Each structure stands twice: as C-alpha cells, then as structure tokens.
C-alpha cells in the first residue's frame, strides 16, 4: 500500500475509444491490486476493474482544457484513457500506477494476495487437477520402449527441466548425464509426446555444444536410442527450429547443431522460426498498426505485412505441421530443439501435439498440453511476460504466438476444438496477470522454491469452473473433424489477423453478437428444454451432446468465488 499516493480521485472521465465524445464520469480508486473506476451514473453504476499486473504502460498525455489525460495500456491489449481534472492528482496516479505495475519481487505479485474464499482442501484439489504423470500414462508410458528416468531428481542434471522425465529404456543415467553436459543448460533430449498408433515420438532438447567439431559419445548414444525405440523407422529427424544462419552463428560460441556425419541415422532439418527479439519487435509493429486512428486499407495491410507477424505465425505452424507429418504419416520420431529449447521448441512441440492428438483439442487437453510443454519444461514465463520489473530484452510474445496458432487452426477446423476463442483470450490474460501461481517464475524448480502450491491458487481449477463460458458450440466429440490428425493448409491466405486479440479496445458490448454467441445461447436453451422434457418424459435419442458435462467432477468442487473471475467490466 505504500506505493499508493492517492487512493481516490473524483470526477474522472473514462473515454470510450469507440465514441470519444461521450465520456463517462466517475471516481477512480487505487487499491493494492486494482484500479477501479466507478461510474457516477446512478442507473448503470458500472465498474471497470484493471489489474495492476496487466498494465504494461502508464502514459501521461499533454494536458488539455478538460484535464490531464492518462493512458493505461494493458498486456492483454486493452487500452483505457482517463481524464483527471487536477494535474497534481494525475501525477500521483501516474507515479503510483507506474510503480504498482512494475513489481520488483515475486512477493508483490497478485497471486500471493488473491484469495478466492476456498478452503485448503479445494486449493490442493485444484493444484492436483492437472497431473502430468497421468498424462504420460494416457499416452501409454512407461512401456517396453520408454522409461521414467530418476536422473533429474532434485533437478540434479538440469534445473530448468521437470524432475520426472522419460527416456528410451536403454538409456542409463550416465548417458543422460553425459548428454546433458553436451547440451545448452543441460537440457538433454527427452520425450514430450508419444504417438501410440505407431510408437513414433516427439523429443525435445536444447542445442548441442558442438561448435565446429566437438562430439559427445553419450549424446550420440542418446539419439541412437531414441531412433531405436521406434521400431517403425530406421532413422529419426533432428529439427532445429532456428533459421540456418542463426544456428551457424552459434557454432562460433561453441554451440550449434548436430553434424549428420557424427550421428548415425539422423536426418537434419532447419525450420526457420525467428528469435525472441525479432518476435518482440514484430508484435510491437503490429500494435502500432492497430493503434492508428482511422487507418486506410493500405495503411493496415501494409503495416500488417511490414510487421511480419503473420509470417512468423506461419513459420511456427509450418514447423508443427512438419513434425506432425513426420510422426503420423512417416512414422518417424523427431527431436526438436532451438537454442535453449524453451521458446521455439515449446511452440513447435505443442503445435505438433495439437495436430496429432484430439485430446489436446479438448478444454482439459489444452491445459495439460500447456502444463507439459510450457510450464513443466521451463518456459520462462516470468521473463517472457515481464512479471517483474527486469530486462526488457527478455520479454517476448512466445505464448501469444502459440495461442494464435491454436486460433488460426480453429478457423480452419471450426468443429475440432472443444474450447472457443474466449478461452484462448482468458488464458492469455492469466499468463500475464499473475492472479494465479501457475505461470510464476521461470521453471518448475523456482515454483517449488516459491511454494506456489501452498501460497497461491491454480488457474486450471478456476478456468474449469467457468468452463461453460469456454465451450465451442460447434464441437462434438463424435464429429469426424474431431478425430485423428489435423492437416491444416498453410498457404499465406489461410492466416487471418486476430481481431479478437489485438483489437480489444473496441468496446465489446457495442458489437453485434457473433455466430458463436448465438449458437451458445441456443445450445444452452436446448439443454434447459432437454431437462424439462426429461423431467416429464424421455428425451429424443441421439442428439444430446453437452460435451462439457462428460468429465464433470474431475476438478473438484466449484468453490471459487465467481466475482473474482470477472475483474473487468463487471456489472
């Protein structure tokens, strides 16, 4: 609370970007976690809540006769513009919010104070809802080809990996240790996805420390073991998701990529996804386009092209398609890496998994996928999404791009995904807001040290509780589109600008309902009618399909306080 210079300012105007001439007047409150704007209008009494941790920029604009404009830019791309009558107040609010939106220590983050009125039991149940060991069992592991290795217990070998990892049955701890010494940050090759149908796998690692000529026997044995654990193929692909030029430059620093001559039976491939710095500036350029006041079509299309954003999205999806095709169609295992193996590798592996396995296209499946490929494998959430005031060069929209790939796929396969766009948008918000502990820190080890399971709540339980909001009405588990491997088209014209994500400041309540909204309402009504009918007589057969009700109870009791789930624009 010591950072709040003024807790309350009266007669503040909130400007609606869609109709800037009609501001609403009200009171702005600053709390430890939120800015709250309460409209004075007695009839509506609308409240706008903005979480401090979602604010990425507080900007004071030149004073006008009406007062001092203050612009809040949020990490979920919402923009709020207030006009504060007194210069002094504006300065205070600006200074307070600037400090509040840039926490310096983990302890300041919202997840440590957020208390949704649940008991200890429910909290623990929430945390155990997504169980990665169950996920590996679901894929069919361990089995006669793959085993759980104890090598990384207590993070002895690699402190950015999870402790439980799967390696080929023939791989011994010395091989793991040897291989890890030959890989950046000790991130040795390990399994992430196992394709039950044909035993082909997706494995991941960081780049080898090969330089121009270095070799490592254990690493070569490791790759040979991965190839051998796939009885269907005599070779494996090693995929470096970086552009070739970047990978070659790394050789000078003693890193690099696998030499095909040193590894028996590998086929090497570059996939050309750019690094985090390119992606950060690309997204920045795209925001500038979205921010233009009444742009022409040329401004927009030229800006979109110039940002390169869709090109990068295509590169990631293409990488996923390459891997999925190798696994499903050729039956060949793939080892994926980039530099450290926690950004592009996570993107490529998770997109490929999504294409390969219908499970990840369900609500719970996507949670599991993110927990596995991103959370457990040490994607640096706190660095990438700037949870703490730190090095801006570490920030990059890696997860944004993954979520956008999912969205682009859902356009091509409207019936294949159980979740809707809103789910992706909420996930995006949660990753940035730190309301829950799941995405805290940069590795599993850090989260354990922070004791997030004891001190914070799990976002998955929260999302699951509100799952009715996230269901795609067109999804049906028995629909042909839902089954099997997705084979998306990746011609440039298949990629769309994601308006729902990047044009958040357009007022949602002024837009006409979308097809999804209407169908959701119709389906809800149908469910009520079904209930009314079944109370009286039998329901017509073969038509009922409320997908969300199948796994009811998996997530424990619906004990979370609803009010905390709708911080923004709650009535």
């Amino acid at each position, binding site marked *: 609370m010591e950072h709040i210079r003024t807790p309350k300012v009266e007669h503040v105007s909130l400007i609606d970007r869609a109709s800037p001439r009609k501001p609403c007047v009200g009171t702005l409150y600053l709390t430890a976690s939120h800015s709250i704007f309460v409209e004075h209008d007695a009839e509506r009494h609308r409240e706008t809540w903005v979480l401090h941790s979602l604010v990425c920029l507080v900007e004071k604009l030149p004073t006008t006769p009406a007062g001092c404009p203050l612009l809040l830019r949020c990490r979920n791309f919402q923009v709020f513009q207030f006009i504060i009558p007194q210069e002094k107040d504006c300065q205070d609010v600006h200074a307070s919010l600037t400090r509040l939106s840039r926490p310096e220590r983990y302890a300041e983050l919202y997840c440590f104070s957020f208390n949704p009125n649940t008991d200890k039991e429910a909290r623990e149940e929430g945390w155990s809802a997504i169980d990665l060991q169950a996920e590996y069992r679901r894929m069919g592991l361990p089995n006669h080809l793959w085993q759980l290795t104890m090598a990384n217990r207590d993070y002895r070998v690699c402190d950015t990996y999870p402790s439980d990892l799967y390696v080929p049955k023939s791989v011994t701890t010395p091989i793991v240790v040897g291989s890890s010494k030959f890989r950046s940050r000790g991130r040795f090759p390990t399994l992430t996805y196992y394709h039950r149908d044909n035993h082909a796998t997706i494995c991941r690692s960081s780049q080898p420390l090969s330089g121009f000529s270095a070799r490592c026997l254990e690493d070569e044995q490791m790759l040979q073991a991965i190839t051998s654990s796939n009885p269907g193929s005599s070779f494996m692909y090693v995929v470096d998701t970086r552009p070739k030029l970047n990978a070659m430059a790394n050789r000078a620093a003693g890193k690099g990529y696998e030499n095909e001559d040193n590894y028996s039976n590998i086929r090497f491939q570059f996939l050309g996804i750019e690094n985090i710095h390119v992606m950060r500036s690309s997204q920045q350029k795209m925001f500038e386009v979205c921010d233009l006041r*009444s742009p022409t079509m040329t401004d927009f299309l030229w800006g979109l092209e110039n940002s390169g954003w869709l*090109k990068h999205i295509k590169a990631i999806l293409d990488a996923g398609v390459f891997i999925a095709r190798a696994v499903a169609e050729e039956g060949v295992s793939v080892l994926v890496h980039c530099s450290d193996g926690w950004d592009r590798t996570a993107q490529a592996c998770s997109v490929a998994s999504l294409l390969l396995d219908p499970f990840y296209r369900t609500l719970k499946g996507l949670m599991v996928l993110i927990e596995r490929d991103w959370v457990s494998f040490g994607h640096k959430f706190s660095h990438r999404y700037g949870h703490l005031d730190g090095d801006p060069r570490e920030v990059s929209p890696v997860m944004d791009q993954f979520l956008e790939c999912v969205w682009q796929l859902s356009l091509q*396969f409207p019936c294949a995904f159980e979740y809707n766009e809103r789910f992706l948008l909420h996930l995006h918000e949660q990753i940035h807001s730190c309301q829950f502990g799941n995405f805290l820190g940069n590795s599993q080890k850090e989260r354990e040290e922070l004791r997030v399971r004891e001190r914070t709540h799990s976002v998955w339980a929260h999302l699951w509780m509100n799952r009715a909001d996230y269901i795609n009405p067109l999804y049906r588990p028995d629909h042909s*589109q839902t089954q099997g491997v997705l084979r998306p088209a990746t011609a440039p014209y298949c990629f769309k600008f994601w308006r729902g994500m990047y044009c958040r400041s357009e007022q949602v309540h002024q837009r006409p309902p979308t*097809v999804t909204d*209407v169908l959701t309402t119709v389906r809800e009504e*149908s469910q009520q009618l*079904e209930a009314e009918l079944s109370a009286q007589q039998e329901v017509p057969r073969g038509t009922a399909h409320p997908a969300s009700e199948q796994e009811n109870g998996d997530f424990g009791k619906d004990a979370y306080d609803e009010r905390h789930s709708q911080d923004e624009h709650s009535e």
Partner: protein
Amino acid sequence: MEFAELIKTPRVDGVVLHRPFMPTVEGTLCLTGHHLILSSRQDNTEELWLLHSNIDYIEKRFVGSLGTIIVKCKDLRIIQLDIPGMEECLNIASSIEALSTLDSVSLMYPFFYRPMFEVVEDGWNMFLPEEITLTLLTDEWRLSSVNKDFGVCPTYPQLVAVPKAVDDDTLRKVATFRHGGRFPVLSYYHKKNGMVMMRAGQPLTGTNGRRCKEDEKLINATLRPGKRGYIIDTRAINVAQQAKARGGGFEQEASYPQWRRIHKAIERYNILQESLIKLVEACNDQSQSMDRWLSKLEASNWQTHVKEIVTTACLAAQCIDREGASVLVHGTEGTDSTLQVTSLAQIILDPCCRTMRGFQSLVEREWLQAGHPFQQRCAQSAYSNSKARLEAPVFLLFLDCVWQVLRQFPCSFQFNEHFLVLLFEHAYASQFGTFLGNNAAERLKLKLPQKTVSLWSWVNRPQEMERFLNPLYEPNNLVIWPSVAPQSLLLWEGVFLRWNRSSKCLDEAYDEMVHIIEYNKELQSKVNALRRQLAQLETGDGLLETP
C-alpha cells in the same frame, strides 16, 4: 447461324478432367451449342456441365500429341482437360473460344433453356415497378410514366417515382441537364422520418457553369421547409472537376444553397477490373510467401474499394437516419458507383432489404431497373486477356460489401452467403434471362419475360430456397451500422478462395450450426406440446374433482 458450324469436333473420348479438390475423371468430352460436357459414363462420378458463357479464357499446351486445355471460368474456377490428339485439342479449343464469345444476345443459352421444374411463381412478374414503388409512395411522391417509350432516359424503366409537385414537362427539361437523361428519381423512402434517397446522373454544368432551374426545383421539392439536404458525389473532387471539361460537372453551391455536397472516391471501370484481375492472380498464386501475398493483396486495392463503398453507403445512411436529411447520390452516369451506394445504404437502413424477397426486390429495383449495364460489365471476368473497355466488377463489389455486412451481423439477414455467391455466378453466366441486357428498354426489346426463365422463378421454389436461407436469421428492425475499420473488412473467401482451399470443414461447421438450431426447434415444439398436454390434464383433473 447454326452452332454446328462452330463445333468442329463434337466429341472426343479419353479426355481427363482435373478439377480443384475433386478426383480426376476420365471420360468423353462433348461440345453442344451452349455446354461443354464431360461424362465418364459411370454412375458414381459427377459429370461436368459447363456453360460456354461461363468460360472467361482458355490456354492450350502441348506435350507430344497430348494436348491440354486450361479452362478459366468467370466464376474464377480453373479446370484442366487433357485431350489426346493435337488436332482434336485444337478443334475443341477453337470451338470453345468461338462459342464462349458469341456476339448476339439472342443466341445465349437462356433463350434455349427449358426449365425442368414447374414455374409456380413467375419471377418476371414478382417485382413489377408499379408494385415496387407503390409501397414507397406517400402523398409527396407519384409514379411518372414520362419515360414510357424510353424517350426521356434510355436507361431508366418506364415508371419512375418523382416528387408530386413536379410535372412531366419539368422532368423532360431536367433530363436534358443530367447525364444520360438520368434525372433525379426516388431510390428509397425512409419510413421512420420521411427522409428520402434519390439518385441521378451528373449535372451537365460544363465549364461555364450551366444552371437548370427545373433541376433545382425538382430536388428542392424533396426538402422539408428550412431543412438542408446532402449531395453525395461518388467521385473525388478532382475527378468531378475534370468532368466539367467533358460537359459534366457537379452542383455548384450558388445554385443549390440548400444542399451540402460531399465527395467520396469510388473507383470505376478499368480500375476495378484491373483490381479484380490482380486480386484473383494473388489468390491463385500457391507458391508465394506471406510477404508476397499481403503485398499483392494490398496492391490489388480490392479491399480499399470495398471499404470506400461501405463507408460511402454508411455516410448516406447516416445523413438520412441520424441527421434527418434527404440525400441525392450521383457519380458520372449514375449506373455504377451510385447504385452501389444507394443499394448498400438500403441494406443498412431497411430491414426489408435483408430478407430473401426484399433483397431480390432491391437487386431488381436498384440494379436491373435502374439500368446497371450487366451485359457490358459482366462480359469478362478476372482471366480475360482482352483489354477491358466496359467490363467492371461493380455488382461483384456490391455483393462483397453485402457479405461484409452480413458477416458482421450474422443474424440480421434472411439469406446466407451462398445466395450472394449464386447471384455473382448468375450475373456472369446463367441459364436464366434475369441478368441479360443492359437496361429495361433492352430487356423489353429482347422479350426476355416471354422467351426466358427468370432466376427468381427458380430461386423462390421452396426446395431451392432452403439452401439459401440463413438458419440464424432473427428479424431485426433496427438500422445496422457496419464497422468500416480495415480489420473488420475481410477478404471474401467464399468467392476468391473458393477454388483454392477445401471448404469441407467449413461446410461441416455450417451443417453443425443448422443441426443445433433445428434440434432446438424440435425441442421447442415438443416442450410446447407437453405443456399443452399438462395444461389440459390439469383442467381435466379439475373437472373430475368437481363433484
């Protein structure tokens, strides 16, 4: 002329047909007077029946004695025919070229087509001008038959709606002052506030600023006392200035003090045609990078045209509905951009135009009767090599704009996207006579109602109509304001990417949507029946209980 003279080789065996997203078919190719037919004579494969008039351009290639003809259609589809034998291939190609570019309208297929269905409601009589406009009339407006013999304006219909206060002699004088004799007529009457939208050709002011008192009187007669109106000129100010040198021009403030003139820049003719050609070329380039695609899409300018038209239509609608002012729209001739604006503004303002019947009536009234020269504009599509003179995708752009609004308001239209695509196809090549000719006078001369079948006769049969109805339709009596932000206006994939990407998954989603809604309706009726039963039982019980 006999078609037989043009058909050098009527049939070839062993022809292989390649179509987008369909298995190749081997069969016999037949040419008839109006169709290219490929049949495998097997029950399980679909035959190809292609109207010659749908063929925009063909290319020939030879590898040894195997010839290949690439047929590029006006609906943007590209198919490939592999024809064994060089001579056969050359003969087929030259026959197709001759048959797809017949000069005489009366040789077109609609004059030979006999419907395989019973015409229940004749489309030719569905939207008679009297009926169309009568509904609009109030005591301020009347129907004039000054153009009965098409003498005053050759591109207007015989009946037009004009202010009651203006007599036919005045109209004749005004016609001499407006391009093509297109004097201001009523296009739309806004019931909510009595404001109107009129359209006309440009005033012929010329370089020395000619005036026409009757013209001023006519349009002033539509203003309420003390009110101002808006003139929307669909040309940029410099284009309108240049028009003066050719005898055209625009309304000077001095002569029309009660009117405020606004210029918008909607392109016409070859600029639109080239835009279409570039867009389709971009869409068909499968091997390009993202940068190249976006840059080609931008360079085609198609989306810019869409944005400009929607914006101008919104402006017209805003003047009428929000400002409470009457509007006069014109460009140069008043047969292209003018109609795009007046018809789209009605979609925005008038819920009737968003119904199946109302939209057909709008097309009939604002495009066919209003004298949009379909025959000239739709003679060639995106693949033609010949220099475009009169061709322009004006109507396609209008349909694209309607699709944009429909996409933004998915529940407010009674018809669906398929219906818009259908109209695009039939405007360019059809078995029906609806889009033949350039104006009402030509259609009358061609005796289209007697000699051809109307598209509306076919579309409005319940079994056909079903495919074109929007399952999400909920009548919405409000004015709908579309967003014109560039990110809200999308490429119309249903037309431009139709043959480049499989629509299977999207079609399945559409079916799923229909299923969800039908299932809901089924439940509704069951629950209603049940409730009725319960109510009856209760009253029945009540009766039993009474002693």
